[in-house]
């Protein structure tokens, strides 16, 4: 049976290969710190598969070490030789639309794999672990796309793909680790009881009589707690336990399905506004090599505010009709 762990090893191998390339790169200004960061990241992807049998603390220590290395400016991208703009222009004309094939292979194979292979069983054992078909599909798709790319584009050395991968990965830099660090923070906040504290505060400010005010507190609580945690999933149970269920459903008789569905989407408006949702709002600017790393959030805020108002209006009407 194929499990998602195999795919984590594939990703770990890519990070590790980046670390090795940097170790061999004498021209790199911060060679050893960068090598340490990417190698630790790669090894941690492997180690993470065995935390049920191995102790957790070496992984925890490695994660803190990576955060400190990358967070204190000890990593920076090296210079990786690639093609020039003129070479790319010429190649774009000669290769034509075939250039889209590798990139398009990724979604097509991912989806085909997730839909098709999830039902395949060999000798009674399912081929893919339950609930992991999309992750596994992505891993298979990356390998398929690399093969398509090497066959169609015919690089002199196929290993050049790893070098180009390193170039892009280094340009993203420390932001690679941030989404996972925010998940760690969310877990620590939960264990420390931050959620219950916020819920208690929300419960205090809800008045007894006003249905409208209670709806607004629920929606605002979803959005603002999402802004702090970076994730509407963390806000939902807390705000629902504090306001959504006891006040809106039990006291004012709101219909649960529309209330909770739209309440979650009010939280999503918060996700659009927060750097804490790093994988949505900070990693893309890094991947696109933007100068202003907060511009995507600034662009999203007007839509988020307008949509939040729409959500409040919907929550005032739909659950009570």
């Amino acid at each position, binding site marked *: 049976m194929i499990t998602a762990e195999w*795919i*984590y090893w594939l*990703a770990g191998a890519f*990070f590790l290969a980046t670390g090795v390339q940097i170790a061999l790169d004498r021209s790199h200004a911060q060679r050893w710190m960068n090598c340490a960061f990417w190698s630790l990241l790669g090894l*941690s992807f492997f180690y*993470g598969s065995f935390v049920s049998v191995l102790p957790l603390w070496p*992984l*925890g*220590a490695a994660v803190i070490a990576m*955060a400190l290395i*990358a967070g*204190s400016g000890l990593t920076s991208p090296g210079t990786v030789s690639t*093609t020039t*703009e003129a070479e790319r222009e010429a190649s*774009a004309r000669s*290769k*034509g639309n075939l250039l*889209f094939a*590798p*990139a398009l292979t*990724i979604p097509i194979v991912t*989806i085909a794999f997730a839909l098709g292979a999830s039902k395949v069983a060999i000798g009674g054992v399912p081929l893919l672990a339950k609930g992991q078909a999309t*992750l596994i599909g*992505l891993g298979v798709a*990356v390998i398929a*796309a690399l093969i398509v790319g090497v066959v169609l*584009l015919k*690089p002199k050395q196929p290993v050049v793909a*790893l070098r*180009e991968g390193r170039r892009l990965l280094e340009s993203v830099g420390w932001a*690679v680790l*941030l989404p*996972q*660090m925010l998940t*760690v*923070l969310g*877990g*620590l906040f939960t264990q*420390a009881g*931050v959620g219950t*504290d916020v819920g208690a505060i929300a419960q205090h400010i809800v008045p007894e009589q006003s249905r409208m005010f209670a709806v607004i507190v629920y929606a605002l609580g979803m959005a603002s707690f999402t802004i*702090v945690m970076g994730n509407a*999933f963390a806000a939902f*149970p807390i705000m*629902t*336990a504090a306001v959504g*269920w006891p006040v809106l459903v039990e006291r004012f008789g709101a219909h*649960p*399905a529309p209330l*909770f*569905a739209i309440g979650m989407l009010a939280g*999503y408006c918060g996700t659009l506004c927060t750097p*804490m949702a790093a994988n949505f709002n900070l*990693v893309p*600017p890094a*991947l696109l090599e933007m100068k202003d790393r907060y511009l995507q959030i600034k662009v999203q805020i007007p*839509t988020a505010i*307008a*949509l939040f108002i729409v*959500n409040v209006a919907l929550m005032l009407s739909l659950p009570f009709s």
Partner: protein
Amino acid sequence: MLPLIGVLIVVAGFALRRNPLIVVTIAGIASALLAGMPIARIIDAFGSGFANSRSISLAFMVLPVVGLAERYGLQQRAKLLISTAAGLTAGRLLLVYLFIRQLTAALGLTSIGGVPQMVRPVIYPMAEGAVVRAYGDELPERVSDEVKAHSAAADTIGVFFGEDIFVAIGAVLLITSYVDATYHLALDALQIALWAIPTAIAAFVIHGFRLLRLDGRLTAMLASGTDKREDKP
């Protein structure tokens, strides 16, 4: 209430533009210490949190594929392609992408888009190509940043307000499983998914309207010429 100091550290850290990795590490440790967690358990929490969240980072696996195609001119090809479609401005192109992203996400096909595999290699170069075609070569950094930000935003908004219409997505399952387990209801996942449709339509109308005005904004930015952000460090 003491652990809430961790939240304040996060807010202050981001406001002061400290490196987010350091801010998050300190805030997490501070909150946990104030809640009375022993050091050993905090270090373990870093390990288990990392191990359980590895799936978020899998998106970076596509970078060797994207990099290889870029080496042979993928972005340039995307620009060439857009230069043949005369009516397709940056705003209209992103509007079409927003629609496709919402629709496919609503059908559960969230892996069709995404910034690493779709926006960087294809959508952003096309949007920039459309601007370049209309206004000539070499966009100022401020303008290309604006196009990049809008390309990424269309992707994010599209997937956020599309995926909840699909019954088997995480958010819908979280709502039903949490509410059913806590309050002993039997919410229908399909009901939750259907109630996401009004917001999805509103998201398309609101953001679509802003995208249609993007072309005018970019024209104004290019006409004003001087790069106002240049003099700030």
